């Protein structure tokens, strides 16, 4: 296991550079590293090097069906890592847990069963695909560390129910952490860069970090909750430019209690709308997120707002494409956009592909695996496709 050190962060983000060491400090009292590097060390986290146990998300395979496959392909084929895609895995209960439908004891026991699958397979580094799962695992492990009696009770409950035993992972990292860790290795393999081929300028990218990634346990996220750098680091390394707009840290509105009840969804969409209005003047080329809910809502709410208020947040009326970080990485590595599942997004991506210069066949957009053509989806009333 290796700690992400300053070797991978030769230059901290601009907002950290203002905290530099005082040059007029006597030499004997001067620290070994400049202050900005010492401060930034508090904002990094441990990420395992290899041998990962992957846990899939409940909803990502529906909304972004190519993302998880792309992550596994990147790790195995591009980086040569060992990652296990366990067939017996199941939910972490995250949605039910945060909606007060599933009690804590049940969640802890189900988390314990997932850990037992990892232990049985001989792995120690847990990688949950979903940001909510990442938050649940971080929270449960923290509870067990603080209250060993809860851990013992969970071990007992799991053994009584299933006869299984488990070990707590040595390292829990989100897949976006791993892509961030190896972003420079991936950069060397990439076919495209985040550059507008018509203007030669970096693409303007809105990065959105899921709330459960670093707002619950700040130390679990790269850059903590204050300076989340996990997606910004990828964008900057791969040639793009991050848009630092006023509502950058605002929630997308996915919060389980809002969207589960249909009548409450007006509150949910209001959060996304606030973000869209804030980012609109910066004319971003696309949005990238590391959370299933954020990517989905920042994509599909654009359609709902266009239907309800006849408003889109780009100049041409197509909307702002909303991608996962695996889709972004996959596109730049030269993977086929339709194999990545980009045709399933609400805001269509052809304009973005053209800007980057990515080759694609429009005729294959709705072609099934057996070569037959699937019916095209119905067109929205106001959002251009």
């Amino acid at each position: 296991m290796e700690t992400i050190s300053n070797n991978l962060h030769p230059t901290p983000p601009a907002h950290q550079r203002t905290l530099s060491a005082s040059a007029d400090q006597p030499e004997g009292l001067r620290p070994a590293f400049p202050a900005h590097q010492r401060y930034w060390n508090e904002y990094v986290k441990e990420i395992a090097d290899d041998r990962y146990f992957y846990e899939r998300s409940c909803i990502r395979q529906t909304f972004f069906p190519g993302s998880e496959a792309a992550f596994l392909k990147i790790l195995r084929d591009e980086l040569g890592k060992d990652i296990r895609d366990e067939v017996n895995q199941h939910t972490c209960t995250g949605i039910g847990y945060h909606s007060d439908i599933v009690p804590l004891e049940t969640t802890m026991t189900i988390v314990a069963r997932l850990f037992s699958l990892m232990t049985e397979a001989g792995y120690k580094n847990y990688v949950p695909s979903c940001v909510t799962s990442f938050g649940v695992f971080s929270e449960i492990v923290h509870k067990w560390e603080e209250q060993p009696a809860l851990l013992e009770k969970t071990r007992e409950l799991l053994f009584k129910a299933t006869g299984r035993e488990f070990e707590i992972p040595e390292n829990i990292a989100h897949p976006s952490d791993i892509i961030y860790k190896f972003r420079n290795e991936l950069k060397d393999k990439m076919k495209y860069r985040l550059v507008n081929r018509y203007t030669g300028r970096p693409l303007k990218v809105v990065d959105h970090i899921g709330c459960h990634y670093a707002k619950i346990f700040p130390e679990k996220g790269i850059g903590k909750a204050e300076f989340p750098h996990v997606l910004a680091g990828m964008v900057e390394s791969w040639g793009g430019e991050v848009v630092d707009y006023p509502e950058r840290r605002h929630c997308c509105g996915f919060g389980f209690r809002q969207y589960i009840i249909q009548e409450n969804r007006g509150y949910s969409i209001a959060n996304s709308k606030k973000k869209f209005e804030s980012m609109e003047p910066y004319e971003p080329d696309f949005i990238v997120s590391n959370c299933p809910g954020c990517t989905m809502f920042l994509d599909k709410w654009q359609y709902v707002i266009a239907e309800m208020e006849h408003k889109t947040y780009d100049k041409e009326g197509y909307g702002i494409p909303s991608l996962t970080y695996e889709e972004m990485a996959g596109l730049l590595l030269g993977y086929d956009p339709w194999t990545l599942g980009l045709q399933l997004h609400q805001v269509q991506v052809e304009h973005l592909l053209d800007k980057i210069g990515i080759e694609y066949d429009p005729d294959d957009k709705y072609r099934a695996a057996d070569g037959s053509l699937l019916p095209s989806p119905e067109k929205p009333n106001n959002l251009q496709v």
Partner: protein
Amino acid sequence: MPEFGFSISKGRTIDFDLLDSARTAALEGDDSGLIKCMDCGTCTATCSAGAFSDFSIRKIHTMFRRGQYDGVAEALSKCMLCGKCTLVCPRSVNLRHAIIRMRQTLRTSVPDDDDLRHYLNVL
């Protein structure tokens, strides 16, 4: 448009660029002592009109300070100017006077709004 079963909630953000600070300044610059208000709500608790309607002096004052005037004129028309709020105020704010000043401020600031004028001329 498809039937979504919900609508977009209105934002609760207070946009200072849209805030009409002149009305608020006119209110706090008078001699009612409203600037001393600590939002305790005693005025609202003792209000006769508040017992029979949703009239709330505390809420109206808060909306004025935020520059949010929607519905304020209608709410102000419910006050009977009995003055009980002034008697109980721990900061000795002359709330009866403040309400009259609020009505005057709205009346002069929105001269073209007939509905508003109608409400403000009641009592």
